[in-house]
Protein backbone atom coordinates (compact mmCIF):
# COMPACT_ATOMS: atom_id res chain seq x y z
CA UNK A 1 0.00 0.00 0.00
CA UNK A 2 1.37 3.38 -0.98
CA UNK A 3 1.05 6.46 1.16
CA UNK A 4 -1.68 8.90 0.12
CA UNK A 5 -0.43 11.44 2.63
CA UNK A 6 2.92 11.83 4.28
CA UNK A 7 3.84 14.16 7.08
CA UNK A 8 7.61 14.77 6.99
CA UNK A 9 9.57 16.29 9.83
CA UNK A 10 6.82 18.73 10.73
CA UNK A 11 7.67 21.16 13.51
CA UNK A 12 5.57 24.05 14.67
CA UNK A 13 6.12 26.83 17.16
CA UNK A 14 3.68 29.39 18.47
CA UNK A 15 6.12 32.04 19.70
CA UNK A 16 8.43 30.18 22.06
CA UNK A 17 6.06 27.24 22.46
CA UNK A 18 7.05 24.10 20.56
CA UNK A 19 3.73 22.55 19.72
CA UNK A 20 5.04 19.94 17.30
CA UNK A 21 8.56 18.50 17.13
CA UNK A 22 9.77 16.63 14.11
CA UNK A 23 6.54 14.71 13.54
CA UNK A 24 6.65 11.96 10.90
CA UNK A 25 3.88 9.63 9.86
CA UNK A 26 2.02 8.49 6.79
CA UNK A 27 -1.50 7.56 5.84
CA UNK A 28 -1.74 4.46 3.62
CA UNK A 29 -4.12 4.62 0.67
CA UNK A 30 -7.44 3.00 1.52
CA UNK A 31 -6.78 2.86 5.23
CA UNK A 32 -8.52 4.33 8.22
CA UNK A 33 -5.66 5.94 10.07
CA UNK A 34 -6.10 7.30 13.54
CA UNK A 35 -4.31 10.08 15.35
CA UNK A 36 -4.93 10.19 19.06
CA UNK A 37 -3.46 12.01 21.96
CA UNK A 38 -4.55 13.72 25.15
CA UNK A 39 -5.67 17.35 25.19
CA UNK A 40 -2.89 19.74 24.30
CA UNK A 41 -0.87 17.09 22.47
CA UNK A 42 -0.85 19.16 19.25
CA UNK A 43 -3.50 17.19 17.36
CA UNK A 44 -5.43 20.22 16.21
CA UNK A 45 -2.29 22.05 15.13
CA UNK A 46 -1.11 19.07 13.12
CA UNK A 47 -4.56 18.70 11.65
CA UNK A 48 -4.68 22.35 10.62
CA UNK A 49 -1.28 21.99 8.97
CA UNK A 50 -2.43 18.94 7.02
CA UNK A 51 -5.67 20.63 5.88
CA UNK A 52 -4.00 23.91 4.92
CA UNK A 53 -5.34 26.18 7.65
CA UNK A 54 -1.85 26.66 9.06
CA UNK A 55 1.67 26.74 7.57
CA UNK A 56 4.18 24.71 9.59
CA UNK A 57 7.34 26.37 10.92
CA UNK A 58 9.27 23.51 9.41
CA UNK A 59 8.71 20.31 7.45
CA UNK A 60 6.52 19.13 4.60
CA UNK A 61 3.11 17.68 3.89
CA UNK A 62 3.30 15.32 0.90
CA UNK A 63 0.29 14.20 -1.11
CA UNK A 64 1.10 11.21 -3.34
CA UNK A 65 4.71 12.31 -3.68
CA UNK A 66 3.99 15.99 -4.25
CA UNK A 67 4.52 18.66 -1.59
CA UNK A 68 1.29 20.46 -0.70
CA UNK A 69 2.67 22.31 2.32
CA UNK A 70 2.01 25.74 0.84
CA UNK A 71 -1.13 24.93 -1.12
CA UNK A 72 -4.34 26.82 -0.29
CA UNK A 73 -7.30 25.09 1.31
CA UNK A 74 -9.36 25.16 -1.87
CA UNK A 75 -6.49 23.83 -3.99
CA UNK A 76 -6.15 20.90 -1.59
CA UNK A 77 -9.87 20.37 -2.00
CA UNK A 78 -9.39 20.03 -5.77
CA UNK A 79 -6.73 17.39 -5.05
CA UNK A 80 -9.40 15.45 -3.16
CA UNK A 81 -8.34 16.33 0.37
CA UNK A 82 -11.31 17.38 2.52
CA UNK A 83 -11.68 17.99 6.20
CA UNK A 84 -14.48 18.36 8.72
CA UNK A 85 -14.49 20.47 11.86
CA UNK A 86 -14.73 19.75 15.54
CA UNK A 87 -17.87 21.89 15.71
CA UNK A 88 -19.82 20.95 12.56
CA UNK A 89 -19.59 23.74 10.00
CA UNK A 90 -22.78 23.68 7.97
CA UNK A 91 -24.14 26.46 5.80
CA UNK A 92 -26.83 27.39 8.28
CA UNK A 93 -29.13 29.49 6.09
CA UNK A 94 -29.16 26.94 3.30
CA UNK A 95 -31.28 23.83 3.37
CA UNK A 96 -29.66 20.43 3.87
CA UNK A 97 -30.19 19.73 0.19
CA UNK A 98 -28.54 23.01 -0.80
CA UNK A 99 -25.64 22.22 1.51
CA UNK A 100 -25.09 19.02 -0.43
CA UNK A 101 -25.47 20.83 -3.76
CA UNK A 102 -22.78 23.20 -2.49
CA UNK A 103 -20.65 20.12 -1.91
CA UNK A 104 -20.71 19.55 -5.69
CA UNK A 105 -19.09 22.97 -6.27
CA UNK A 106 -15.92 21.48 -7.75
CA UNK A 107 -17.84 19.48 -10.35
CA UNK A 108 -19.33 22.68 -11.77
CA UNK A 109 -17.83 24.98 -14.34
CA UNK A 110 -20.30 27.84 -14.74
CA UNK A 111 -19.36 31.35 -13.65
CA UNK A 112 -21.07 34.58 -12.69
CA UNK A 113 -22.29 35.55 -16.17
CA UNK A 114 -23.85 32.17 -16.85
CA UNK A 115 -25.44 32.32 -13.42
CA UNK A 116 -26.95 35.76 -13.97
CA UNK A 117 -28.68 34.67 -17.16
CA UNK A 118 -29.49 31.15 -15.94
CA UNK A 119 -27.95 29.63 -19.05
CA UNK A 120 -28.79 25.99 -19.84
CA UNK A 121 -25.41 24.90 -18.43
CA UNK A 122 -26.42 26.33 -15.05
CA UNK A 123 -29.75 24.51 -15.05
CA UNK A 124 -28.04 21.26 -16.03
CA UNK A 125 -25.42 21.66 -13.33
CA UNK A 126 -28.03 22.45 -10.70
CA UNK A 127 -30.16 19.47 -11.70
CA UNK A 128 -27.14 17.17 -11.53
CA UNK A 129 -26.18 18.58 -8.12
CA UNK A 130 -29.74 18.10 -6.91
CA UNK A 131 -29.72 14.49 -8.13
CA UNK A 132 -26.48 13.73 -6.27
CA UNK A 133 -27.78 15.58 -3.21
CA UNK A 134 -30.94 13.46 -3.12
CA UNK A 135 -28.85 10.30 -3.39
CA UNK A 136 -26.62 11.45 -0.56
CA UNK A 137 -29.65 12.38 1.56
CA UNK A 138 -30.88 8.83 1.16
CA UNK A 139 -27.48 7.31 1.94
CA UNK A 140 -26.99 9.40 5.07
CA UNK A 141 -30.56 9.19 6.34
CA UNK A 142 -31.21 12.89 5.81
CA UNK A 143 -34.30 12.61 3.59
CA UNK A 144 -36.71 13.72 6.28
CA UNK A 145 -34.80 16.95 6.89
CA UNK A 146 -33.59 17.64 3.36
CA UNK A 147 -35.66 20.82 3.04
CA UNK A 148 -34.89 22.17 6.49
CA UNK A 149 -32.30 24.82 7.12
CA UNK A 150 -29.08 23.11 8.13
CA UNK A 151 -28.58 25.64 10.93
CA UNK A 152 -31.81 24.54 12.61
CA UNK A 153 -30.73 20.90 13.01
CA UNK A 154 -29.31 19.32 16.17
CA UNK A 155 -25.53 18.76 16.34
CA UNK A 156 -25.72 15.09 15.41
CA UNK A 157 -27.61 15.81 12.20
CA UNK A 158 -25.32 18.72 11.37
CA UNK A 159 -22.38 16.31 11.64
CA UNK A 160 -24.08 14.03 9.12
CA UNK A 161 -24.71 16.96 6.78
CA UNK A 162 -21.05 17.91 7.00
CA UNK A 163 -19.93 14.35 6.27
CA UNK A 164 -22.39 13.93 3.41
CA UNK A 165 -21.31 17.26 1.93
CA UNK A 166 -17.67 16.16 2.04
CA UNK A 167 -18.38 12.68 0.68
CA UNK A 168 -20.52 13.90 -2.23
CA UNK A 169 -17.47 15.18 -4.12
CA UNK A 170 -15.80 11.74 -3.90
CA UNK A 171 -12.66 12.85 -2.04
CA UNK A 172 -9.54 10.67 -1.92
CA UNK A 173 -8.80 11.54 1.67
CA UNK A 174 -11.19 12.74 4.35
CA UNK A 175 -9.68 14.22 7.49
CA UNK A 176 -12.13 14.16 10.37
CA UNK A 177 -11.53 16.32 13.42
CA UNK A 178 -13.16 14.83 16.51
CA UNK A 179 -16.15 13.51 14.55
CA UNK A 180 -17.80 12.11 17.66
CA UNK A 181 -17.74 15.28 19.72
CA UNK A 182 -21.18 16.40 20.80
CA UNK A 183 -22.86 13.18 19.63
CA UNK A 184 -24.97 10.78 21.69
CA UNK A 185 -23.94 7.12 22.01
CA UNK A 186 -26.47 6.11 19.34
CA UNK A 187 -25.23 8.79 17.01
CA UNK A 188 -21.63 7.68 17.51
CA UNK A 189 -22.62 4.13 16.57
CA UNK A 190 -24.32 5.44 13.42
CA UNK A 191 -21.30 7.60 12.65
CA UNK A 192 -18.98 4.61 12.84
CA UNK A 193 -21.17 2.63 10.44
CA UNK A 194 -21.09 5.51 7.99
CA UNK A 195 -17.33 5.95 8.25
CA UNK A 196 -16.82 2.25 7.65
CA UNK A 197 -19.08 2.44 4.62
CA UNK A 198 -17.23 5.48 3.22
CA UNK A 199 -13.94 3.65 3.66
CA UNK A 200 -15.28 0.59 1.85
CA UNK A 201 -16.20 2.78 -1.12
CA UNK A 202 -12.56 3.75 -1.45
CA UNK A 203 -12.18 6.89 0.62
CA UNK A 204 -9.10 7.00 2.84
CA UNK A 205 -9.87 8.37 6.27
CA UNK A 206 -7.65 10.17 8.74
CA UNK A 207 -9.35 10.30 12.08
CA UNK A 208 -8.27 12.68 14.82
CA UNK A 209 -9.81 12.13 18.19
CA UNK A 210 -9.21 11.59 21.84
CA UNK A 211 -12.21 9.28 21.88
CA UNK A 212 -10.91 5.68 22.09
CA UNK A 213 -14.27 4.24 21.06
CA UNK A 214 -14.27 5.82 17.62
CA UNK A 215 -10.71 4.65 17.09
CA UNK A 216 -11.97 1.07 16.98
CA UNK A 217 -12.47 1.44 13.22
CA UNK A 218 -8.91 2.54 12.49
CA UNK A 219 -6.39 0.04 11.16
CA UNK A 220 -3.33 1.98 12.26
CA UNK A 221 -3.18 4.62 14.94
CA UNK A 222 -0.50 7.11 15.82
CA UNK A 223 -0.24 8.48 19.33
CA UNK A 224 0.76 12.12 19.65
CA UNK A 225 2.02 13.22 23.04
CA UNK A 226 3.41 16.68 23.74
CA UNK A 227 4.19 17.31 20.07
CA UNK A 228 5.81 13.97 19.33
CA UNK A 229 4.61 10.65 17.94
CA UNK A 230 5.34 8.24 20.78
CA UNK A 231 3.76 5.07 19.40
CA UNK A 232 2.21 3.58 16.28
CA UNK A 233 0.17 0.43 15.89
CA UNK A 234 -3.26 -1.15 16.07
CA UNK A 235 -5.49 -0.09 18.92
CA UNK A 236 -4.97 -3.37 20.81
CA UNK A 237 -1.21 -3.00 20.51
CA UNK A 238 -1.40 0.56 21.71
CA UNK A 239 -3.59 -0.30 24.67
CA UNK A 240 -0.89 -2.70 25.80
CA UNK A 241 1.89 -0.16 25.26
CA UNK A 242 3.16 1.17 28.60
CA UNK A 243 4.14 4.57 27.16
CA UNK A 244 0.63 5.09 25.81
CA UNK A 245 -0.94 4.02 29.09
CA UNK A 246 1.29 6.46 30.86
CA UNK A 247 0.43 9.29 28.47
CA UNK A 248 -3.28 8.66 28.85
CA UNK A 249 -3.63 7.60 32.41
CA UNK A 250 -0.59 9.29 33.86
CA UNK A 251 0.10 5.96 35.53
Amino acid sequence: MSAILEVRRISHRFGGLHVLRDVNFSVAEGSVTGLIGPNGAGKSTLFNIISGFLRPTDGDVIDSGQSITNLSIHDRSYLGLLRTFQTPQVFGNLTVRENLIAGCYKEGRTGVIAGLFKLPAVRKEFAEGARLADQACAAFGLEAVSNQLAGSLPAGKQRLVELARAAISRPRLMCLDEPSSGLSADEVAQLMLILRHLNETGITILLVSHDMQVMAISSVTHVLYFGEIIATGSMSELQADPRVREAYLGA
Partner: protein
Amino acid sequence: MSASPTFSRRLLPWAGIGILVLAWAVVPFIVGRSIVDILVFTALYTIAGLGVAFLLGQCGIVSLAQSVFFGIGAYSTAYGLTAFKMPAVVAMLVGVAISGSIAAAVGFPVLRLSGYFLALATLALAIIGHVLFLEWEWLTGGTLGIGGIAPISFYGYPLNTPFRFYYLVWPIVVVVIWLHYNLLRSRTGIAMQAMRDAPSAAAVIGVSIAHLKVKVFVLSAVLGSFAGSLFAHYVSFVSVDSFGVDKAITFLLIAVLGGVRSIAGIVLGALFVTAAPHWLSKFGDVHALLFAVLLIVAVIFLPGGFGGAIAQMWRRLGGESRVAEILGSVRRP
Protein backbone atom coordinates in the same frame (compact mmCIF):
# COMPACT_ATOMS: atom_id res chain seq x y z
CA MET B 1 -66.73 23.35 -4.45
CA SER B 2 -64.79 22.44 -1.32
CA ALA B 3 -61.50 23.19 -3.07
CA SER B 4 -62.51 26.71 -3.98
CA PRO B 5 -61.64 28.51 -0.70
CA THR B 6 -58.07 27.13 -0.83
CA PHE B 7 -57.90 28.06 -4.46
CA SER B 8 -58.95 31.63 -3.83
CA ARG B 9 -56.54 31.86 -0.90
CA ARG B 10 -53.75 30.85 -3.22
CA LEU B 11 -54.88 33.23 -5.89
CA LEU B 12 -55.23 36.17 -3.55
CA PRO B 13 -51.54 37.07 -3.30
CA TRP B 14 -51.15 36.81 -7.06
CA ALA B 15 -54.12 39.08 -7.52
CA GLY B 16 -52.27 41.43 -5.18
CA ILE B 17 -49.27 41.43 -7.47
CA GLY B 18 -51.52 42.04 -10.47
CA ILE B 19 -53.04 45.05 -8.74
CA LEU B 20 -49.56 46.27 -7.85
CA VAL B 21 -48.44 46.12 -11.48
CA LEU B 22 -51.59 47.90 -12.59
CA ALA B 23 -51.08 50.54 -9.92
CA TRP B 24 -47.49 50.96 -11.05
CA ALA B 25 -48.64 51.56 -14.61
CA VAL B 26 -51.30 54.17 -13.79
CA VAL B 27 -49.59 56.02 -10.93
CA PRO B 28 -47.80 58.57 -13.14
CA PHE B 29 -51.15 59.56 -14.66
CA ILE B 30 -52.62 60.31 -11.27
CA VAL B 31 -49.89 61.82 -9.11
CA GLY B 32 -47.94 64.99 -9.70
CA ARG B 33 -44.59 65.41 -11.37
CA SER B 34 -42.69 65.68 -8.10
CA ILE B 35 -43.92 62.28 -6.91
CA VAL B 36 -43.06 60.64 -10.21
CA ASP B 37 -39.63 62.20 -9.79
CA ILE B 38 -39.30 60.56 -6.37
CA LEU B 39 -40.36 57.22 -7.81
CA VAL B 40 -37.69 57.52 -10.51
CA PHE B 41 -35.08 58.12 -7.81
CA THR B 42 -36.45 55.16 -5.89
CA ALA B 43 -35.74 52.98 -8.91
CA LEU B 44 -32.24 54.40 -9.42
CA TYR B 45 -31.39 53.90 -5.75
CA THR B 46 -32.86 50.42 -5.79
CA ILE B 47 -30.33 49.39 -8.44
CA ALA B 48 -27.37 50.85 -6.53
CA GLY B 49 -28.79 49.63 -3.21
CA LEU B 50 -29.14 46.08 -4.52
CA GLY B 51 -25.39 46.09 -5.10
CA VAL B 52 -24.76 47.02 -1.48
CA ALA B 53 -27.40 44.60 -0.18
CA PHE B 54 -25.87 41.83 -2.25
CA LEU B 55 -22.47 42.37 -0.63
CA LEU B 56 -23.92 42.65 2.85
CA GLY B 57 -26.56 39.93 2.69
CA GLN B 58 -24.74 37.32 0.67
CA CYS B 59 -21.13 37.95 1.73
CA GLY B 60 -21.41 39.85 5.00
CA ILE B 61 -19.34 42.70 3.57
CA VAL B 62 -20.31 46.19 4.71
CA SER B 63 -19.55 48.56 1.86
CA LEU B 64 -19.59 52.33 2.11
CA ALA B 65 -17.88 52.68 -1.27
CA GLN B 66 -20.97 52.51 -3.48
CA SER B 67 -21.06 56.32 -3.89
CA VAL B 68 -17.70 56.10 -5.71
CA PHE B 69 -18.99 53.66 -8.30
CA PHE B 70 -22.25 55.60 -8.61
CA GLY B 71 -20.08 58.65 -9.31
CA ILE B 72 -17.84 56.89 -11.80
CA GLY B 73 -20.89 55.77 -13.75
CA ALA B 74 -22.38 59.26 -13.71
CA TYR B 75 -19.14 60.99 -14.77
CA SER B 76 -18.43 58.42 -17.48
CA THR B 77 -21.81 59.14 -18.99
CA ALA B 78 -21.47 62.90 -18.51
CA TYR B 79 -17.93 63.18 -19.87
CA GLY B 80 -18.35 60.54 -22.57
CA LEU B 81 -21.44 62.20 -23.95
CA THR B 82 -20.36 65.83 -23.72
CA ALA B 83 -16.65 65.54 -24.60
CA PHE B 84 -16.59 62.54 -26.96
CA LYS B 85 -20.18 62.44 -28.21
CA MET B 86 -20.33 58.77 -27.29
CA PRO B 87 -23.58 56.86 -27.69
CA ALA B 88 -25.29 56.46 -24.31
CA VAL B 89 -24.78 52.69 -24.16
CA VAL B 90 -21.05 53.00 -24.89
CA ALA B 91 -20.53 55.62 -22.18
CA MET B 92 -22.46 53.43 -19.76
CA LEU B 93 -20.29 50.43 -20.60
CA VAL B 94 -17.13 52.52 -20.20
CA GLY B 95 -18.32 53.47 -16.72
CA VAL B 96 -19.11 49.85 -15.88
CA ALA B 97 -15.67 48.76 -17.13
CA ILE B 98 -13.85 51.44 -15.12
CA SER B 99 -15.88 50.70 -11.98
CA GLY B 100 -15.40 46.97 -12.35
CA SER B 101 -11.65 47.34 -12.87
CA ILE B 102 -11.25 49.64 -9.87
CA ALA B 103 -13.34 47.32 -7.71
CA ALA B 104 -11.15 44.37 -8.75
CA ALA B 105 -7.89 46.24 -8.17
CA VAL B 106 -8.97 47.66 -4.82
CA GLY B 107 -10.89 44.56 -3.80
CA PHE B 108 -7.93 42.20 -3.65
CA PRO B 109 -6.11 44.02 -0.85
CA VAL B 110 -9.15 45.57 0.89
CA LEU B 111 -11.40 42.49 1.05
CA ARG B 112 -8.76 40.63 3.06
CA LEU B 113 -9.95 42.76 5.95
CA SER B 114 -13.12 41.97 7.80
CA GLY B 115 -15.66 43.54 10.14
CA TYR B 116 -15.11 47.13 11.20
CA PHE B 117 -11.75 47.38 9.45
CA LEU B 118 -13.32 46.49 6.14
CA ALA B 119 -16.13 48.99 6.68
CA LEU B 120 -13.56 51.66 7.50
CA ALA B 121 -11.51 50.81 4.43
CA THR B 122 -14.57 51.16 2.18
CA LEU B 123 -15.39 54.45 3.92
CA ALA B 124 -11.86 55.59 3.07
CA LEU B 125 -12.56 54.69 -0.57
CA ALA B 126 -15.69 56.83 -0.50
CA ILE B 127 -13.74 59.78 0.90
CA ILE B 128 -10.87 59.38 -1.58
CA GLY B 129 -13.37 59.11 -4.43
CA HIS B 130 -15.16 62.25 -3.33
CA VAL B 131 -11.88 64.20 -3.09
CA LEU B 132 -10.79 63.07 -6.55
CA PHE B 133 -14.18 63.97 -8.04
CA LEU B 134 -13.70 67.41 -6.52
CA GLU B 135 -10.05 67.92 -7.49
CA TRP B 136 -10.01 66.54 -11.01
CA GLU B 137 -11.84 69.51 -12.44
CA TRP B 138 -10.64 68.81 -15.99
CA LEU B 139 -12.65 65.61 -15.90
CA THR B 140 -15.53 66.21 -13.52
CA GLY B 141 -15.96 69.97 -13.62
CA GLY B 142 -15.41 70.01 -9.85
CA THR B 143 -18.12 71.90 -7.96
CA LEU B 144 -19.42 73.40 -11.20
CA GLY B 145 -20.17 69.95 -12.52
CA ILE B 146 -20.99 68.88 -16.04
CA GLY B 147 -24.28 69.92 -17.60
CA GLY B 148 -26.09 69.34 -20.84
CA ILE B 149 -26.07 65.54 -20.69
CA ALA B 150 -28.41 64.31 -23.39
CA PRO B 151 -31.37 62.17 -22.29
CA ILE B 152 -31.64 58.57 -23.37
CA SER B 153 -33.75 58.40 -26.50
CA PHE B 154 -35.47 55.58 -28.30
CA TYR B 155 -35.59 56.10 -32.06
CA GLY B 156 -35.52 59.86 -31.61
CA TYR B 157 -38.02 59.84 -28.74
CA PRO B 158 -36.21 61.45 -25.78
CA LEU B 159 -36.94 60.17 -22.27
CA ASN B 160 -36.51 63.65 -20.85
CA THR B 161 -39.34 63.91 -18.35
CA PRO B 162 -39.89 62.07 -15.06
CA PHE B 163 -43.01 60.57 -16.63
CA ARG B 164 -41.14 59.06 -19.56
CA PHE B 165 -38.07 57.99 -17.57
CA TYR B 166 -40.32 56.20 -15.06
CA TYR B 167 -41.40 53.71 -17.71
CA LEU B 168 -37.79 53.01 -18.67
CA VAL B 169 -36.20 52.68 -15.25
CA TRP B 170 -38.70 50.42 -13.49
CA PRO B 171 -38.57 47.63 -16.07
CA ILE B 172 -34.78 47.86 -15.72
CA VAL B 173 -35.18 47.35 -11.98
CA VAL B 174 -37.26 44.23 -12.63
CA VAL B 175 -34.58 42.87 -14.96
CA VAL B 176 -31.83 43.55 -12.41
CA ILE B 177 -33.86 41.78 -9.71
CA TRP B 178 -34.42 38.84 -12.03
CA LEU B 179 -30.67 38.57 -12.72
CA HIS B 180 -29.96 38.83 -9.01
CA TYR B 181 -32.37 36.02 -8.20
CA ASN B 182 -30.95 33.83 -10.96
CA LEU B 183 -27.45 34.25 -9.63
CA LEU B 184 -28.48 33.13 -6.15
CA ARG B 185 -29.76 29.86 -7.59
CA SER B 186 -26.54 29.15 -9.50
CA ARG B 187 -23.25 27.53 -8.56
CA THR B 188 -21.67 30.90 -7.79
CA GLY B 189 -24.69 32.03 -5.77
CA ILE B 190 -24.68 28.90 -3.63
CA ALA B 191 -20.95 29.36 -3.08
CA MET B 192 -21.55 32.96 -1.95
CA GLN B 193 -24.15 31.92 0.58
CA ALA B 194 -21.88 29.11 1.74
CA MET B 195 -19.07 31.62 2.22
CA ARG B 196 -21.36 33.88 4.23
CA ASP B 197 -22.51 31.10 6.55
CA ALA B 198 -19.23 29.23 7.10
CA PRO B 199 -16.18 30.58 5.26
CA SER B 200 -13.82 27.80 6.41
CA ALA B 201 -16.17 25.08 5.24
CA ALA B 202 -16.72 26.91 1.95
CA ALA B 203 -12.96 26.87 1.33
CA VAL B 204 -12.91 23.15 2.09
CA ILE B 205 -15.49 22.41 -0.60
CA GLY B 206 -13.26 24.21 -3.10
CA VAL B 207 -14.41 27.83 -3.03
CA SER B 208 -11.60 30.35 -3.37
CA ILE B 209 -12.78 32.87 -0.79
CA ALA B 210 -10.53 35.74 -1.90
CA HIS B 211 -11.59 35.44 -5.55
CA LEU B 212 -15.27 35.08 -4.81
CA LYS B 213 -15.34 38.16 -2.57
CA VAL B 214 -13.70 40.21 -5.31
CA LYS B 215 -16.21 38.93 -7.86
CA VAL B 216 -19.13 39.99 -5.71
CA PHE B 217 -17.50 43.36 -5.06
CA VAL B 218 -17.07 43.89 -8.81
CA LEU B 219 -20.68 42.93 -9.41
CA SER B 220 -21.82 45.37 -6.75
CA ALA B 221 -19.68 48.14 -8.27
CA VAL B 222 -21.12 47.42 -11.72
CA LEU B 223 -24.65 47.91 -10.36
CA GLY B 224 -23.60 51.17 -8.69
CA SER B 225 -22.01 52.43 -11.89
CA PHE B 226 -25.01 51.47 -13.98
CA ALA B 227 -27.34 53.34 -11.63
CA GLY B 228 -24.98 56.33 -11.77
CA SER B 229 -25.10 56.43 -15.57
CA LEU B 230 -28.90 56.33 -15.57
CA PHE B 231 -28.89 59.05 -12.93
CA ALA B 232 -26.69 61.30 -15.12
CA HIS B 233 -29.05 60.89 -18.08
CA TYR B 234 -32.05 61.60 -15.92
CA VAL B 235 -30.86 64.74 -14.17
CA SER B 236 -28.78 65.92 -17.19
CA PHE B 237 -26.37 67.67 -14.81
CA VAL B 238 -23.91 66.03 -12.43
CA SER B 239 -21.75 67.65 -9.79
CA VAL B 240 -19.58 66.40 -6.98
CA ASP B 241 -22.32 67.04 -4.41
CA SER B 242 -24.19 63.97 -5.57
CA PHE B 243 -21.34 61.55 -4.78
CA GLY B 244 -20.37 62.34 -1.20
CA VAL B 245 -20.09 60.08 1.79
CA ASP B 246 -23.71 60.86 2.68
CA LYS B 247 -24.74 59.11 -0.54
CA ALA B 248 -22.68 56.07 0.44
CA ILE B 249 -24.52 55.99 3.76
CA THR B 250 -27.86 56.33 1.96
CA PHE B 251 -27.06 53.26 -0.15
CA LEU B 252 -26.06 51.26 2.90
CA LEU B 253 -29.23 52.43 4.63
CA ILE B 254 -31.31 51.05 1.75
CA ALA B 255 -29.73 47.64 2.24
CA VAL B 256 -30.17 47.62 5.99
CA LEU B 257 -33.74 48.98 5.96
CA GLY B 258 -34.74 46.64 3.18
CA GLY B 259 -33.60 43.62 5.14
CA VAL B 260 -30.31 42.70 3.57
CA ARG B 261 -31.38 39.44 2.02
CA SER B 262 -34.71 40.62 0.72
CA ILE B 263 -35.07 41.78 -2.83
CA ALA B 264 -38.51 43.33 -2.52
CA GLY B 265 -37.46 44.95 0.73
CA ILE B 266 -34.69 46.82 -1.06
CA VAL B 267 -37.28 48.58 -3.21
CA LEU B 268 -39.09 49.74 -0.08
CA GLY B 269 -35.79 50.73 1.50
CA ALA B 270 -35.04 52.86 -1.54
CA LEU B 271 -38.54 54.35 -1.41
CA PHE B 272 -38.03 55.20 2.24
CA VAL B 273 -34.73 57.05 1.74
CA THR B 274 -36.07 59.01 -1.23
CA ALA B 275 -39.63 59.74 -0.13
CA ALA B 276 -39.26 60.26 3.62
CA PRO B 277 -36.85 63.25 3.46
CA HIS B 278 -39.05 64.82 0.78
CA TRP B 279 -42.21 64.72 2.87
CA LEU B 280 -40.43 65.59 6.07
CA SER B 281 -38.96 68.71 4.50
CA LYS B 282 -42.43 70.28 4.92
CA PHE B 283 -41.68 70.53 8.62
CA GLY B 284 -38.79 72.88 8.01
CA ASP B 285 -35.44 72.73 9.75
CA VAL B 286 -36.26 69.77 11.97
CA HIS B 287 -36.66 67.43 9.00
CA ALA B 288 -33.26 65.80 9.46
CA LEU B 289 -34.08 65.07 13.08
CA LEU B 290 -37.49 63.66 12.15
CA PHE B 291 -35.85 61.44 9.54
CA ALA B 292 -33.49 60.11 12.19
CA VAL B 293 -36.42 59.36 14.51
CA LEU B 294 -38.27 57.60 11.70
CA LEU B 295 -35.18 55.51 11.01
CA ILE B 296 -34.89 54.45 14.63
CA VAL B 297 -38.58 53.55 14.72
CA ALA B 298 -38.22 51.50 11.55
CA VAL B 299 -35.23 49.60 12.90
CA ILE B 300 -36.98 48.86 16.21
CA PHE B 301 -40.29 47.72 14.75
CA LEU B 302 -38.95 45.96 11.66
CA PRO B 303 -35.88 44.04 12.79
CA GLY B 304 -35.97 41.95 9.61
CA GLY B 305 -36.26 45.12 7.55
CA PHE B 306 -39.12 45.76 5.17
CA GLY B 307 -38.35 42.44 3.47
CA GLY B 308 -39.03 40.47 6.65
CA ALA B 309 -42.34 42.27 7.12
CA ILE B 310 -43.44 41.56 3.55
CA ALA B 311 -42.58 37.89 3.78
CA GLN B 312 -44.58 37.58 6.97
CA MET B 313 -47.58 39.30 5.44
CA TRP B 314 -47.38 37.07 2.37
CA ARG B 315 -47.42 33.95 4.50
CA ARG B 316 -50.37 35.29 6.48
CA LEU B 317 -52.24 35.78 3.21
CA GLY B 318 -51.58 32.12 2.48
CA GLY B 319 -49.06 32.61 -0.30
CA GLU B 320 -46.55 29.93 -1.16
CA SER B 321 -43.50 30.02 1.03
CA ARG B 322 -41.28 29.82 -2.04
CA VAL B 323 -42.63 33.18 -3.16
CA ALA B 324 -42.23 34.53 0.36
CA GLU B 325 -38.60 33.54 0.05
CA ILE B 326 -38.21 35.46 -3.17
CA LEU B 327 -39.97 38.46 -1.72
CA GLY B 328 -38.48 38.40 1.71
CA SER B 329 -35.64 35.92 1.48
CA VAL B 330 -36.16 35.45 5.17
CA ARG B 331 -35.86 31.78 5.87
CA ARG B 332 -35.35 31.62 9.56
CA PRO B 333 -36.89 28.40 10.85
